[in-house]
């Protein structure tokens, strides 16, 4: 029994309780929150190293062997995603302390943030379909509460959409669990992987499609993405940044996990590639039509999800490795872009493009932070987005899937166009009267995220190698099932 696995979930939860106990003492709250998130980061790195050294790390809770008990698993894939997520959670916590801390807007913030951390860790580490549902709910209820940190009529409306859509998705998730349990008699993912092979293919395909729909809502896939651009931009910057970076990516993580482990397929999946292409295109076209920094960036979340699903759709080691690299790159870049968007709002009091301008002259540092992230998002060399897109395109060409490659390249150009739109409206032009000043803490946290994004580009080779090893594991479900069912 590896104690790191359960403690990566339990420590932030305990921390959340502690922050409530210390009450309105903000310094103590911040220390506890930072300690909790830091612990998850350290645990994630340790788990990734251990999983990379050999087989996946497994813990059977309560000593009940799988499939009777609840299993926690960390393989290379979940280790990578958890490490990047925890790093972002820590950076954004720094930003939030600097932004929200000044006026002590909401002293429940740290408790919600820690619960969100625990939910993300649980969703990434669980090896059990029902526990995955619980992890999602823990994560979502924290996110509902975080969205309402500042509530005016607009926030209420946006939160409502978000909550109702996610609750419908949760109800559907329960339905999938019921059908899966009815068909196989188990909810343990490893056990399911074995038993689903004996189930009637029609039933299996139905279950696979249902899961794709449920997690497609969470990951904001076309045509189930409409809730996202509506709700994300209304929240305070640190909240939007962490949602943008992590929540949809947890959905993508689960799609990749379930589709490769439970419903293995030979050869590329045309359905997934069509969904990927449509998601990219619709997302980027939505972004072009917007005229607010955060709204543009929100539509780009949708667009970028398409690239990750494209890698999954190829269902080859190289394709999946590209998808994993893309997730790593995207979590960092997207979080960073939203933090920069928050800096723009702090300077100008708004993110509306026609009421900002001239930041290049008044705050060259903010412009310098925006530029590498925007270039990386559009896939311009030498940034990390280029490496990720190159890997996807290469694999697409190798498989002879010309259409999706063409779409992805065109979407890359349109991404560049909408980044130019932000650049020319916000950073060029006549300097506006500054409405405020972004504090050094906010800038410091953003600098840390940009530095991390640049180091993803610098360390592209080791990260790509690690992604390839993770992808090999994913396409060989026996690695996962043997680790869970064999030992313990």
């Amino acid at each position, binding site marked *: 029994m590896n104690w790191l696995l359960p403690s990566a979930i339990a420590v932030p939860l305990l921390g959340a309780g502690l922050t409530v106990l210390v009450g309105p003492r903000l310094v103590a709250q911040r220390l506890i929150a930072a300690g909790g998130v830091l612990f998850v980061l350290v645990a994630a790195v340790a788990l990734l190293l251990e999983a990379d050294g050999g087989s996946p790390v497994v813990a059977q809770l309560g000593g009940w062997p799988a499939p009777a008990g609840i299993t926690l698993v960390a393989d290379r894939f979940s280790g990578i995603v958890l490490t990047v997520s925890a790093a972002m959670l820590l950076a954004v916590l720094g930003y939030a302390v600097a932004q929200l801390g000044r006026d002590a807007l909401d002293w429940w913030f740290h408790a919600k943030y820690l619960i969100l951390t625990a939910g993300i860790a649980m969703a990434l580490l669980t090896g059990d379909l029902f526990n995955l549902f619980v992890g999602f709910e823990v994560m979502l*209820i924290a996110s509902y509460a975080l969205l309402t940190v500042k509530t005016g009529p607009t926030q209420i409306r946006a939160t409502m959409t978000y909550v109702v859509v996610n609750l419908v998705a949760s109800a559907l998730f329960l339905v999938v669990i019921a059908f899966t349990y009815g068909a196989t008699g188990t909810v343990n993912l490893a056990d399911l992987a074995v038993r689903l092979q004996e189930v009637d293919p029609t039933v299996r395909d139905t279950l696979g499609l249902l899961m794709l729909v449920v997690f497609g809502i969470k990951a904001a896939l076309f045509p189930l993405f409409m809730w996202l651009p509506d709700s994300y931009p209304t929240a305070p910057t640190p909240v939007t940044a962490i949602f943008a970076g992590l929540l949809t990516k947890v959905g993508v993580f689960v799609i990749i996990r379930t589709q490769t482990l439970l419903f293995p397929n030979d050869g590329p999946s045309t359905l997934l590639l069509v969904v990927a292409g449509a998601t990219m295109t619709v997302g980027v076209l939505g972004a072009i039509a917007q005229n607010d920094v955060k709204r543009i960036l929100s539509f780009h979340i949708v667009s970028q999800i398409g690239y990750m699903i494209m890698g999954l759709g190829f269902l080859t080691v190289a394709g999946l490795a590209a998808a994993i690299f893309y997730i790593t790159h995207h979590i960092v870049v997207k979080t960073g872009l939203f933090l920069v968007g928050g800096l723009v709002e702090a300077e100008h009091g708004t993110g509306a493009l026609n009421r900002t301008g001239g930041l290049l002259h008044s705050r060259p540092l903010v412009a310098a932070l925006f530029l590498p992230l925007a270039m990386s998002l559009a896939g311009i060399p030498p940034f990390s987005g280029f490496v990720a897109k190159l890997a996807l395109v290469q694999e697409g060409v190798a498989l002879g899937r010309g259409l999706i490659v063409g779409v992805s390249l065109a979407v890359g150009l349109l991404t560049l166009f909408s980044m130019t739109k932000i650049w020319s409206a916000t950073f060029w032009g006549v300097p506006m009267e500054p409405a405020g000043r972004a504090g050094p803490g906010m800038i410091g946290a953003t600098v840390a995220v940009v530095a991390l994004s640049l180091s993803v580009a610098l360390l592209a080779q080791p990260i790509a190698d690690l992604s390839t090893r993770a992808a090999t594991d994913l396409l060989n479900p026996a690695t996962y099932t043997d680790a869970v069912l064999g030992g313990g």
Partner: protein
Amino acid sequence: MSVIGLAVAALLFGVGTYLILQRLLSRVIIGLGLVSHGANLLIMLSGGAAGRPPVLADGASPVGVSDPLPQAMVLTAIVITFGVTAFLLALALRSWRLTGSDAVEDDIEDRRIARETVTVDEPLIDRGMHEEGLGL
């Protein structure tokens, strides 16, 4: 699975979906409750027929015992639904205090698009430039 149970679940889903699509927040919340009841019922049904209590005393045979796992899952799901419904009710109350009505408002973006379509016979140049534009 029992046919009557499935029919009840289907009914709950149908009524719930209808209510979720309504404009009034209170109806949406009731609809969500019904849909989750339907889902919970499905989980119960997936455990197979009812049987004796799943308590394995000494020498008791496990034959004819009902499956305890779906019951445990449903309990968890009910608690989660309960918490989320409480949160939704609080949100609806706040929404009512802020806006004075229980109805979900139009999306700002939708309103903007609706306004654009109404003024479609105006000259194209007048339109758009003041709304849109790159702020140049």
